[in-house]
């Protein structure tokens, strides 16, 4: 009773965003849009442009999920989250999907009541230093000042790494990537540590990228992935398989351009099942049968998204590395569509 009364007040206020019930899928469909939590200031992963359109690697995943569920990649509301507010935003139902380069760890999966739907980017923590410092290995960083973003797993990794190697360091805590960059460039710290993808994107934007080196040591595993609320398996399945569909599409050569053609003419039964011309895979998750077709048409397959947002042709200039298909020596391995 209290709930309905209070909710009634909010409806009058016209600002209610809806009840987060157990079935996220029904909520999203009823609302007609997907609420997606993103990092508002990481170049290449999520950033709004001058007219407020969000673009980036994480953003594309949100759009693909929206396309799969609602049939329209534009029906996404992007909710900027900070390192501190992201988990609560997800737990409270403010967002349906957290696509904010969040590392999949044991405690986050269990204690924080989140479910990771997969890994959309395999990353690792590294260090960037100035060329003229003459440092070639992270093992030589004893006594260094290190810039580090607070509220992330990187500070724990850093502490562990230096302790394990019997070295000391002075942490310089920073709030956002932009500040870390500014601090590092001004010489406020000897080394800047964050995920290698972040280092690369930061370094790419420098006026003199050739004067900065990313050290070879990768001190941690950082599987970054989209997260959903614990306990709603149907919704978790949808996000997981949307991601899988994007990866599989690259493996089978399905692109945004040829997706219609492939759906109609491809003889490969797996592609047929993926694109919904054969079987009833969509119905099993409560989606229309051509959900994956919409998802792929939204921004292309995994490879297309990668190269459009953070790939080597963009200013970020990240190589595929671990994020190549398993057939190319990477870790991307889509579970079969069957």
């Amino acid at each position, binding site marked *: 009773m209290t709930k309905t009364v209070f909710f009634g007040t909010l409806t009058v206020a016209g600002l209610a965003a809806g009840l987060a019930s157990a079935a996220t899928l029904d909520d999203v469909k009823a609302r007609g849009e997907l609420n997606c939590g993103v990092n508002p200031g990481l170049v290449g992963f999520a950033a709004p442009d001058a007219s407020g359109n969000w673009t980036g690697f994480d953003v594309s995943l949100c759009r693909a999920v929206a396309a799969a569920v609602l049939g329209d990649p534009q029906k996404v509301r992007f909710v900027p989250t900070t390192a501190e507010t992201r988990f609560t935003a997800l737990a409270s139902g403010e967002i349906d999907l957290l696509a904010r380069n969040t590392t999949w760890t044991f405690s986050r999966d269990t204690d924080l009541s989140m479910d990771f739907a997969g890994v959309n980017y395999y990353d690792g923590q590294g260090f960037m230093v100035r060329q003229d410092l003459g440092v070639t290995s992270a093992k030589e960083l004893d006594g260094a000042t290190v810039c580090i973003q*607070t509220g992330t797993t990187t500070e724990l990794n850093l502490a562990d790494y230096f302790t394990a190697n019997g070295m000391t360091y002075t942490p310089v805590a920073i709030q956002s990537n932009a500040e870390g960059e500014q601090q590092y460039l001004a010489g406020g710290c000897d080394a800047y540590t964050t995920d290698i993808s972040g280092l690369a994107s930061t370094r790419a934007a420098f006026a003199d990228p050739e004067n900065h080196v990313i050290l070879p040591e990768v001190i941690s595993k950082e599987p970054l992935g989209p997260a959903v609320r614990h306990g709603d398996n149907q919704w978790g399945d949808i996000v997981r398989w949307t991601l899988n569909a994007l990866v599989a599409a690259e493996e089978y050569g399905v692109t945004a351009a040829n997706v219609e053609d492939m759906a109609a003419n491809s003889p490969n039964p797996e592609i047929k099942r993926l694109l919904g011309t054969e079987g009833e895979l969509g119905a099993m998750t409560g989606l229309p049968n051509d959900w994956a077709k919409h998802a792929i048409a939204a921004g292309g397959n995994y490879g297309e998204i990668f190269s459009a947002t953070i790939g080597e042709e963009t200013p970020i200039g990240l190589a595929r590395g671990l994020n190549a298909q398993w057939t190319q020596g990477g870790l991307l391995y889509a579970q079969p569509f069957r």
Partner: protein
Amino acid sequence: MANAVDAPKDSFRLSMLIYDTRYRSLTIQVIVLMLFMAGAAWLVDNTVRNLAVLGKDFNFGFLGQRAGYDIAQRLIPYTNADTHARALLVGLLNTLLIAVLGCFAATVIGVIVGVLRLSSNWLVARLMTVYVEMFRNVPLLLWILLVFTAFTEASPLPATFRVNAQTGEAESSMLFGLFAVTNRYTAIPDVLVERGLGSLALGPLSINLTFLAIVAVIAGSLLARRALLRHATAVQEATGLRPKTWWKSLLILILPIAALLWALGVHLSVPAITGFNFTGGVNVSNSFMALWLALSLYTSAFIAEIVRAGILAVSRGQTEAAFALGLRPRRTMSLVILPQALRVIVPPLISQYLNLTKNSSLAIAVGYLDLRGTLGGITLNQTGRELECVLLMMLIYLAISLVISGAMNVYNARIKLKER
């Protein structure tokens, strides 16, 4: 009016609860109490149910877990193997440090600016007006960010203090050979004790005996000086002549502490550059310096206005009367104007101190790990216990505020004008 009508009989009716002023306030209070209890119960009930839905509980056990992160500035020993509770304490001490130093610096700058704003010097008065308006009308967060940027952009790298092997000279040199302002930190000399007295362990706490000894000696000197001055006053009242006391009191103040410091072998350890950074001294991080400076400058603009208003509030006749009595300007200030101005100044000054303390929570913008950065930042984030962390943080800030306003209220009551 020959026959006074008897007062109506005092039989209690239910409507009297509302219409009878004797009972009405009681009725209202009972209703408010019930509403308040209902509201509180509603909130607690919601919280319990929400926690159940999320599968969480409410306990502070996480404070005993390993923190796992490092804090650059710490006033007490701390490593990443220590507990979250210890990290909280480090953060709390950092908050208190910035608050105390900030209040001190803001008062000094504020008083100077406030007095200069009243100066007859056209240029200086105008400059001070610009200063006050600039700092008061722009958000504090902006000042913190700007000062921080200025520090990192405008000061030299630590490496530039290294002596170049070829030229035999360093690009930058230290101030007085003691301080080095770099774009990472300000290196200041450390105070070292050669023959320390060790420390006394009292359960989990340990008390540094050296520190205790120094405090005791200073307190002793102050008490002795007070006795000396009281004696001088007594002599003056008896004979009309005040004995000269300044050299005696100076001796009492300086000699014991100097002797103690010498006995302890206290000396300065000057920072020197080794490897990447300065070692040997204390490296005060720039985030601290920037926060301290920005908080002090911002708050000092408000204090300047308070001081100015306080001085203007003392009527001109008071000064003239003091001059007419033959008091010199300095004594006029200290005996006539200041005591009266203080009465106007102190209450708003208290609220500025409170503001500064609360504003120090913006430390997170420059990565200074205070209470908000440790308990309300990293600990919250690593443990996911937002309810416990935020509530605890609020309680601690509340306690600090109450202590400050309590202490200042006592002082305020003492200097209050005793009215008829």
